[in-house]
């Protein structure tokens, strides 16, 4: 079993920045990541993307190149295609078990930084399981990794990622067929007082308005204040129907991209029983963290969107900050850069209150109609969950054992928050009381052979 000073999970901006920082102080670092190449979702495929992708994805994507370059030179031990399926606390830190090419291995780490980023917020609408319906993030991954686009995509939902994707598709020559936007009109008024009047905040807004202008110039129809959304089809998606400003619409399409924000990926912090708390503004559970990202478990840090959604730039700063804290612990020397990084982090987050007020989750997807599937793996509907609550289940884990929600291979990655939300609605209890699924190892399904081989090896 190999061992290093610092283990990092995730090769997005937070993980890469943390690795470079810790390496430059001379510490041994292992970085594990599920993907084949560094970059995370935001800078996915950055080292292999061609001129076409850079043209479409713009300078914010190209920025990631500097990060992967510095990482490549850092001397960090990099474990791509490695999926962490267990983390255990040891006297000396943590042991990570991971699977790579069908075989499992272990590595012991002194401190641990979780930089596993965000997942799409579940968007259970009628018909969301039909082939041809994806997350907006999935469409962007196709663009980044394969320069492939959906031909007649209808985007449904709201948020910065939706607008960014629409603008990128316009540039690609395959503009979306329509945007079905779920932002209630009153939100524009509500968000106004939260406009961040500082350079960083205004910079973000300026970029956003340029993207919107690009989409508008291309003549992409935007249906505002959409509700009663139904994705239609039998064997695959055929159309999206909805009402917008009092009128009924039906748009035929073969692809639908859903998005109403992203939420922290908490598989590892939940597995480690770190404390989490409901955050009403982000409308998600967040791990409780110190200013520098340490969880309630000593030596276990979270950096980036996994600790609360703040975007790629903040993730990079948070990664450095967490690494500096780890270095301070190991060397006993306080790190001069900590203070300025904390300040930078605050400044960069100043646009968030505005975005959170403008783009809250879509109410119809938070409390779906009874016959809408919520748990995609075990095919459990919203109605079944409400019935379970009526029959006295009032916690996420009770519903899980009654209905198997969250017991399929995704372990609640997709439906977890939606289930919490529904139980809260049906029982009238707070989300903190309802809680979240208890996450158990292995985090990803393993074959029994792989497990047996690993256990013999570890003995």
């Amino acid at each position, binding site marked *: 079993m190999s061992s290093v000073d610092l283990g990092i999970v995730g090769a997005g901006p937070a993980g890469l920045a943390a690795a470079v920082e810790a390496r430059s102080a001379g510490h041994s670092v292992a970085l594990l990541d599920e993907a084949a190449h560094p970059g995370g979702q935001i800078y996915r495929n950055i080292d292999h993307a061609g001129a076409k992708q850079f043209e479409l994805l713009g300078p914010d994507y190209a920025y990631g190149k500097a990060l992967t370059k510095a990482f490549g030179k850092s001397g960090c031990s990099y474990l791509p295609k490695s999926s962490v399926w267990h983390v255990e606390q040891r006297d000396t830190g943590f042991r990570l078990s991971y699977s790579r090419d069908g075989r499992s291995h272990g590595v012991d780490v002194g401190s641990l930084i979780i930089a596993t980023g965000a997942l799409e917020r579940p968007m259970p609408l009628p018909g969301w399981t039909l082939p041809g319906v*994806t997350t907006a993030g999935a469409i962007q991954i196709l663009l980044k*990794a*394969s320069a492939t686009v959906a031909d007649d995509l209808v985007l449904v939902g709201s948020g910065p990622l939706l607008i960014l994707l629409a603008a990128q598709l316009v540039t690609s020559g395959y503009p979306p067929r329509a945007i079905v936007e779920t932002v209630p009109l009153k939100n524009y008024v509500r968000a106004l007082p939260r406009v961040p009047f500082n350079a960083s905040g205004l910079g973000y807004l300026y970029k956003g308005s340029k993207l919107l202008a690009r989409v508008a110039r291309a003549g992409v129809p935007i249906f505002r204040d959409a509700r009663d959304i139904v994705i239609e089809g039998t064997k695959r998606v055929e159309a999206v129907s909805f009402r917008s400003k009092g009128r009924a619409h039906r748009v035929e399409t073969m692809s639908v991209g859903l998005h109403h924000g992203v939420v922290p990926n908490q598989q590892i912090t939940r597995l480690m029983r770190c404390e989490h708390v409901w955050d009403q503004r982000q409308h998600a559970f967040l791990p409780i963290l110190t200013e520098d990202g340490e969880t309630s478990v000593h030596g276990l840090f979270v950096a980036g969107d996994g600790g609360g959604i703040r975007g790629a730039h903040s993730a990079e700063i948070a990664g450095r900050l967490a690494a500096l804290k780890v270095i301070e612990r190991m060397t006993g020397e306080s790190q001069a850069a900590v203070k300025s990084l904390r300040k930078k982090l605050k400044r960069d987050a100043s646009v968030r209150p505005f975005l959170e007020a403008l783009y809250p989750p879509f109410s119809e997807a938070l409390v779906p109609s009874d016959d809408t599937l919520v748990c995609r793996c075990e095919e459990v509907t919203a109605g079944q969950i409400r019935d379970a609550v009526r029959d006295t289940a009032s916690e996420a884990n009770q519903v899980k054992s009654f209905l198997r929600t969250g017991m399929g291979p995704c372990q609640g990655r997709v439906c977890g928050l939606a289930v919490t939300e529904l139980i809260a609605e049906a029982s009238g209890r707070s989300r903190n009381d309802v809680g979240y699924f208890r996450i158990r190892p292995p985090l990803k399904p393993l074959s029994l052979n792989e497990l047996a081989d690993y256990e013999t090896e570890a003995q």
Partner: protein
Amino acid sequence: MIYGVHCKDTVQTHMAILTNRLDETLMYQRLLSISDPVKFTFEGQTLTAQAGESVAAALLASNVESFRDTPVSHSLRSPFCMMGSCFDCLVEIDGQPNCQACMTEVRDGMEIYRQRGEA
């Protein structure tokens, strides 16, 4: 897996792919033509992909509509997240069921089949 069922479905798949190809609009379009080809089969039909991409991207770019059916109701599914979290992209690769197509790099000679129900 029962061999007879498998064969019948292969024919259907073939038809589905063909009709799709004749359609004016395809679900997905490549912006770049394939420069470094990889040949693999899906349900017995030979398809081409760009080296380095995922099995899921390769199948979507070939306009394969469904990847699996579900254990509970046998409804059809295709990739939803493309980032390893939803498991709706499960396929059988070279005899091995439960492979996440979005997390597996496509390779020359791979034989890929739909995953049917629980493997």
